[in-house]
């Protein structure tokens, strides 16, 4: 099992993801530069947090055209596990692997604090280490995490069981308290909170461990 961690100019959680996976869980990781065009030998992909390409234009808008993401699109379509964290979630919506968009927090502030979440794993392969209704605590750190989609789309996502992570106390104005979304097949997960920052007891809390450890199941 080798996990590919994408690196764009401006990514800044790539090494946190590597520490969580490799340092805490013993899962081999490799960094994939954004200009790479293939995913040979990669069993799962993580798009980490940060500010890809400076988040110019919109968060994730430029990253979406990175060569490596063409390969990620094909990988996801073939059922490969893809996880987008924070800026990675923004990239997944911009590239159309997940619906909707992430917009400026309702209160305008950049929010950096622990967030209480409710888990509804459904078919999401990344969340099978949690039970329906589990309450977990993961750090959030974002200025543009307000999930936005129209009410019909939200209803459809809820009916499909794709709203797999919800804020217990909505910090940013996301519609439907959405903190994380899965694709219908369950292999793609995008979330604003940072599971990789909640894997090492030294940094406070290990509620993110079951998410990344799902790769070992």
């Amino acid at each position, binding site marked *: 099992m080798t996990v590919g961690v994408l690196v764009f100019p401006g990514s800044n959680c790539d090494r946190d993801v590597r520490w969580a996976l490799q340092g805490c869980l013993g899962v081999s990781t490799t960094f994939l530069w954004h200009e790479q065009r293939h995913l040979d030998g990669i069993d799962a992909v993580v798009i980490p947090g940060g500010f890809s390409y400076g988040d110019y*234009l919109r968060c994730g*808008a430029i990253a979406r055209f990175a060569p490596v993401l063409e390969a990620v699109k094909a990988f996801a379509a073939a059922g490969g596990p893809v996880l987008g964290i924070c800026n990675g979630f923004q990239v997944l*919506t911009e590239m159309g692997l997940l619906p909707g*968009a992430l*917009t400026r*927090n*309702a209160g*305008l502030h950049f929010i950096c604090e622990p967030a209480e979440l409710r888990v509804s794993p459904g078919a999401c392969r990344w969340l099978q280490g949690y039970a329906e209704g589990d309450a977990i605590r993961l750090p959030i750190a974002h200025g543009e995490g307000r999930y936005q989609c129209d009410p019909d789309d939200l209803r459809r996502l809820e009916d499909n069981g794709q709203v797999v992570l919800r804020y217990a106390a909505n910090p940013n*104005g996301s519609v439907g308290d959405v903190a994380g979304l899965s694709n219908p097949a369950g292999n793609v997960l995008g979330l604003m909170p940072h599971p990789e920052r909640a894997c090492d007891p030294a940094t406070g809390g290990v509620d993110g461990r079951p998410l990344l450890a799902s790769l070992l199941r």
Partner: protein
Amino acid sequence: MPTFHARVQVSLRPSVLDPAGEATRAAAARLGVDGVRRLRIGKAIELELEAADRATAQSQLELISDRLLANPVIENWTLEISEPAAAEHP
């Protein structure tokens, strides 16, 4: 090849909350202007494009407006194209 000048105006869809616009509206009141009832912040992108003719320019500009400059999930866009500058047709 002629160069077309274009201006793409990107605005948040009316249904999307614009907290930055609201904050700016509140600041206008602090400046003493109380009558601002609505303030929405968008983007204006100015560009110059080389294309064989106006129809080609139009379709290429529509493509980048819809797929790159704006995210249609949350934004609307409008496009204005100016005729090529006279100097480019000596």
